[in-house]
């Protein structure tokens, strides 16, 4: 019996990195949205905050698209 510990370790490391990365970027996006609401209430436009949030969510969307790529074998 040969257990491929390297592959197992790779799965663990990749999963951990991707999860924490996506959730942290998403949380920063949500933070930017919240900051935008605060700025708008005090009379500002909040465009910068909105753009920041958009960039974060776009990064997360890229992760989703890559996930789809992995699921659908016709793309490989």
């Amino acid at each position, binding site marked *: 019996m040969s257990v491929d510990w390297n592959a197992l370790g790779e799965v663990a490391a990749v999963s*951990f990195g991707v*999860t*924490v990365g996506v*959730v942290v970027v*998403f949380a920063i996006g949500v933070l930017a*949205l*919240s*900051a935008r609401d605060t700025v708008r209430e005090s009379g500002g436009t909040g465009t910068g905050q909105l753009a920041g949030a958009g960039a974060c969510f776009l990064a997360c969307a890229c992760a989703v698209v890559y996930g789809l790529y992995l699921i659908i074998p016709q793309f490989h």
Partner: protein
Amino acid sequence: MDHITFLVALVIVTALAFDFTNGFHDTANAMATSIATGALRPKVAVLLSGALNLVGAFLSTEVAKTISGGIVDDSLVTSGMIFAGLVGAILWNLMTWLLGLPSSSSHALFGGLIGAVWVGAGRHGVHFDKVVEKILIPAVASPVVAGVAALAATYLAYRLTNRARKDTVTKGFRFGQIASASLVSLAHGTNDAQKTMGVITLALISCGALGHNADPPVWVILTAGLAIALGTYLGGWRIIRTMGKGLVDIESPQGFAAESASTAVILSSANLGFALSTTQVCSGGILGAGMGRRLAEVRWGTAGRMALAWLVTLPSAAVVGAVAASVVVHGGTPGVVVIAVLAVAVAGGIVVLSRRNPVHADNVNHGRTTSVRPAEPAGAGA
């Protein structure tokens, strides 16, 4: 079509029945946390999940070519053993559903097949080293990995957003949950619907209706996809309640972290060739997300009962599969009929029992535990 014997027809029907139980057993994996946090209304969640399961079934038939991933010797497997193994898997799935326990459908199928092949073809028909390598090690490792990742992600998400507006945070993460839950559903469709396709295709090959190494015919893909999608849509509300409400009181950032961790583990390991249980990965993710917010939030009693169900799933399904196989092997066609009638009777009995304390879309978020007895005080275990 004149190749298709009574037994093969029965295998096809039984395989589709297993696929159906697989669907409603595993709806919870993708959708439990979205339903619990209110990201999706219960009916919408199961409809979305069912549709994505059907789409997933059509995306790929690569897994379908090997029925068991080398766990049993495919060349020794007969239609009778497949039938007996499926009966074991279905009955175990129904039993755990009655108790609201999220156990692994894949382990039930493997267990049923292992038991049936052991009895039907002898011990050498089962590759025990493969069982350890492909089932046991991923079963221990994958929920831990998903749990640790979800724990870290949840902790950081709460750290980052603790001074942000609460309503914006809740709404934002709910939106993210829809995407992450959908990915889990899609991955589930590609994996689990294919297992049934593989079983049916093997039965068709063994009776000569299809050539060796044939791809699953379109009607097999369609019926397998529809069976799992229908099962998913009908929703295993009893299990959704346990996973969404029973383990931890979940908020949308935790739901998002848990689902992201599950998706990451499922996709990265599928890419590297590990077969693992979606159920166990998702449960691990939810537990981790619970610990990431506050340790005391986790109801360890429920977690313990779940872990126990994981341990016994494979052996229990194997025992049922072995008993069924011995009747089928020694009893011939009458034996097959006896097992089929018994299986339908037991399944019917379990459904009747579940009616005494039904869980459905309208009350799925109300209680924390799923009990078999009616009118039990809240908080008591099943």
